[in-house]
């Protein structure tokens, strides 16, 4: 079924405070979509991880958070885009446990497990765009 966008909000990611803003918006949309506590914690965590990567690795960028419907379910779709260095070693990153920032390297692989849909477009030297969607359960 086709996905309809009910509402859309964009937030720049330029500072640490913006990460909190992204998380708050994700929380508000999870509530409006009727997500249960587990689903909304997953959504907020995914938002936090992706926004932090955009800021920390991508040199800042933009988050677009949308309230979506597909006829039967409500959902939240989040897009994170930056014009940073891109991810040359994508396969390794998606496997998890790999970090260029001497961190845990769980952000990307973990987020993928928390959401229902995960798409990434990354080009070395051009930037990275990640789209994740989480739906209500029934």
């Amino acid at each position, binding site marked *: 079924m086709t996905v309809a966008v009910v509402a859309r909000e964009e937030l720049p990611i330029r500072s640490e405070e913006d990460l909190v803003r992204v998380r708050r918006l994700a929380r508000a949309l999870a509530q409006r979509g009727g997500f249960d*506590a*587990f689903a909304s914690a997953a959504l907020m965590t995914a938002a936090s991880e992706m926004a932090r990567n955009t800021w920390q690795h991508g040199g800042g960028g933009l988050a677009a958070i949308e309230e979506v419907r597909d006829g039967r379910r409500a959902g939240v779709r989040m897009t994170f885009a930056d014009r940073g260095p891109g991810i040359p070693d994508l396969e390794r990153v998606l496997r998890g446990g790999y970090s260029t920032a001497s961190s845990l390297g*769980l952000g990307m692989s973990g987020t993928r497990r928390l959401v229902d849909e995960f798409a990434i477009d990354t080009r070395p030297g051009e930037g990275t765009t990640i789209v994740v969607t989480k739906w209500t359960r029934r």
Partner: protein
Amino acid sequence: MTAIPILRLGNVLLAAVHVDLDDSVAERFQEDLLGRIEKTGAHGLLIDISGLDVVDTYVARVLADTGKMARLMGARTVLVGMRPEVAATLVRMGFGVEGIETALDADEGLAILTGASAR
């Protein structure tokens, strides 16, 4: 910037996190806690996170690292009040829980730290 208050109860330091922990608040919290252990020589550290509805891997790592650092300084750390959805999310992401001591709530955590409960 919001600071998280730290209370002292005998040999134990208590802190309840309620604010939306952004990265710099989390880092400053860690510094404050370690500073207080140094100053007071506390043997126990109880961190109540029942007020947090989201703990991403960054904050989780700061909390876990704080526990390890406190241990190096001779203080035992117990993390209490983690919500079910936060626990499930961290585990699903593959976050390892080794080396983190936990308890259901502050009462229980305090009982562990004061030796009233053998664990």
